[in-house]
């Protein structure tokens, strides 16, 4: 036991003297969690809540532009910008600003859009009741000007879909409303003609009633809520999803300093000295595992503190642990052991510091990508989803999301704990085997 504690304290002391190592272990993951959560928080807001600025060019100056302005302005995810500097926007200015990347989207309501739209709607309504206009006006023959949406080419498809989808929905509403009014007028006119003046136009189905029927009294609506029927579980948000994901990612980066420490011991000859001592190398390894697992746990605690205290200062929701701290700590400990086990294996098998640091870092990034840290597993191709099931980061992340997002307890993450511990045991066993093989060959 004395040897275990000696190694435990020695490794903590060595780590504490390595400023770059401390930066990698604590500061960088904290920055990662902070930045990614803030960025993702903004992404979630732009796809669902608020924030995306859209240049709005009104060349129409009439009903269509007014209604588009009113209704798009009511969409939380969009913020319409009609003036940049002192002058009102023109299409050319808007295109230039969007092309430069200053804004992501521009919408142009062309001149005459409302005027031609009204005439066309009336024409279509009258045609519907068989009243072909013999002398169609010049306006009715003009081509309907199209509304323009242009976007920065760097904008991802999901955001283009969000903006064009919102605009299409607004236009459909405007068209339905306008055509409904014209149909109402046409119907009243036809009925008045057939009743030979007994029924006056507009008295059977008034335009106000029709507007209320088509626009105000909507029967079908959508309400968003989590699948869980428990009201105490909050809506998932960027903080709940990102803090555990990136904290786990940071914890697995213990592979780099741990494998580096093992390689240094081998290269500097201390391992040689250790192997001639009357203490099992297993005890020394356990001391090392305990020290690095403790570092992982401190790192995890720091990440939780960032989510709980620092991120809210930047306007994000507060990280909610759902009162599951013991379950979280147990799962984090298992993830820490899995990470240190992997670090031991990399440090034992690698032949140079460059090999260990490159392979260690890249393999963690790959495991994180496969595990759903960067892109959710459910959007991956089926084959990648199958591979994802073998990533220790996937087991850890699934477990954390069960607790953080679904608010589940220990029983729900038992499988994750088992897989992480099994991974630790396997990597420890492999490290032991490689170490003894190297001892036999003198490598």
């Amino acid at each position: 036991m004395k040897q275990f504690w000696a190694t435990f304290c020695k490794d903590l002391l060595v780590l504490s003297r390595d400023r770059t190592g401390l930066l990698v272990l604590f500061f960088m993951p904290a920055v990662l969690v902070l930045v990614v959560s803030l960025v993702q928080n903004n992404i979630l807001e732009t796809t669902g809540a608020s924030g995306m600025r859209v240049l709005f060019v009104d060349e129409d100056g009439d009903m269509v532009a007014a209604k588009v302005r009113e209704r798009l302005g009511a969409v939380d995810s969009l913020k319409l910008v009609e003036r940049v500097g002192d002058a009102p926007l023109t299409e050319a200015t808007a295109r230039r600003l969007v092309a430069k990347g200053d804004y992501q989207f521009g919408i142009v309501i062309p001149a005459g859009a409302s005027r031609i739209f009204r005439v066309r709607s009336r024409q279509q309504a009258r045609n519907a009741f068989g009243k072909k206009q013999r002398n169609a006006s010049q306006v009715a023959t003009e081509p309907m000007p199209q509304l323009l949406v242009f976007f920065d080419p760097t904008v991802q498809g999901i955001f283009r879909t969000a903006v064009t989808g919102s605009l299409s929905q607004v236009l459909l509403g405007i068209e339905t409303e306008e055509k409904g009014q014209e149909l109402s007028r046409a119907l009243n006119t036809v009925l008045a003609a057939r009743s030979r003046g007994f029924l006056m136009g507009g008295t059977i189905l008034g335009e106000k009633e029709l507007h209320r029927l088509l626009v105000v009294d909507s029967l079908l609506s959508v309400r968003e809520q989590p699948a869980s029927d428990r009201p105490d579980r909050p809506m998932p948000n960027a903080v709940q999803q990102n803090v555990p994901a990136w904290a786990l990612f940071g914890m697995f980066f213990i592979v780099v300093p741990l494998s580096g420490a093992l390689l240094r011991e081998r290269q500097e000859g201390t391992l040689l000295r250790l192997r001639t001592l009357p203490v099992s190398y297993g005890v020394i390894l356990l001391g090392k595992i305990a020290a690095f697992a403790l570092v992982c746990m401190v790192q995890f605690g720091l990440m939780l503190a960032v989510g709980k205290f620092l991120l809210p200062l930047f306007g994000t929701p507060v990280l909610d642990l759902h009162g599951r701290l013991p379950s979280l700590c147990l799962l984090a400990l298992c993830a820490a052991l899995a990470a240190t086990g992997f670090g031991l294996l990399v440090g034992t098998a690698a032949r140079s510091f460059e090999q260990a640091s490159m392979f260690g870092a890249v393999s963690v990034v790959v495991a994180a990508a496969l595990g759903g840290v960067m892109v959710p597993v459910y959007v991956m191709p089926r084959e990648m989803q199958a591979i994802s099931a073998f990533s220790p980061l996937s087991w850890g992340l699934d477990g954390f999301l069960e607790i953080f997002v679904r608010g589940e307890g220990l029983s729900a993450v038992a499988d994750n704990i088992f897989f992480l511990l099994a991974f630790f045991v396997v990597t420890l066993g492999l490290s032991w085997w490689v170490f003894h093989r190297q001892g036999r060959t003198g490598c």
Partner: protein
Amino acid sequence: MTVRPPGGQGESASEIVAATGLVYRYPGSAQPAVVDLSLSVPEGEVFGLLGPNGAGKTTTIAMLTTLLRPAGGSLRVCGVDLLRKPHQVRRLIGLVPQDVALYPTLTVRENLRYFGRLFGMGGKDLNRRVEECLDLVGLRDHGALRIETCSGGMKRRANLAAGIVHRPRLLFLDEPTVGIDPQSRNTILENLARLRQQGMTLIYTTHHMEEAQQLCSRLAIIDGGRVIAAGLPEELIAAGEGCRNLEDLFLQLTGRQLRD
């Protein structure tokens, strides 16, 4: 070939290393690194193990310090069967490797304490012993220095101190004076002589023949994995035709061609 202490009475109570017919072949290697090597080292001696590069010195030391397990032969160290009880042997031996096998970011004192604790030492006994070792190697005033900030000579002396912190009966030194200035080298040689006076047995490898002649009370020259000469330095030199010193004898026995 067997090297026996003067008198040639065979394994005696004062024999600290008794190796017979040791064989070791590295996996994948066509030639064994050590073939039928036998050694007998009396307790209290400074025993020099000399040989050109690739002669089998390091492999022999690795077997004697439990790092490699011989494929054949028998080996007793400090009266313990090393092949059966390596763990017990490790309590009685110390190793000063060729590299400075210390943690660079820890201080000299922290390094010594760590290795002492690994031997089960602790408390006042460990602190006292650490200070004794620092005194012995002349680093008492530099115990708080980190290894990475020490000079080459100080690192070598700290390396020696780490090998003796647990008071071993038998100390292996693998080229402990390589790459240091004459002053530090001289200090180390004085330290080793003092350790011998304290009753510690030293098994010592070096390429400095003058150093070996000055320090070693007995030596063996190894080449091709075998002991090719062994005995008291002055007797070996006298037996060599036209040899004025150990270096002449060494070159006569191992040849002048380069070894890579």
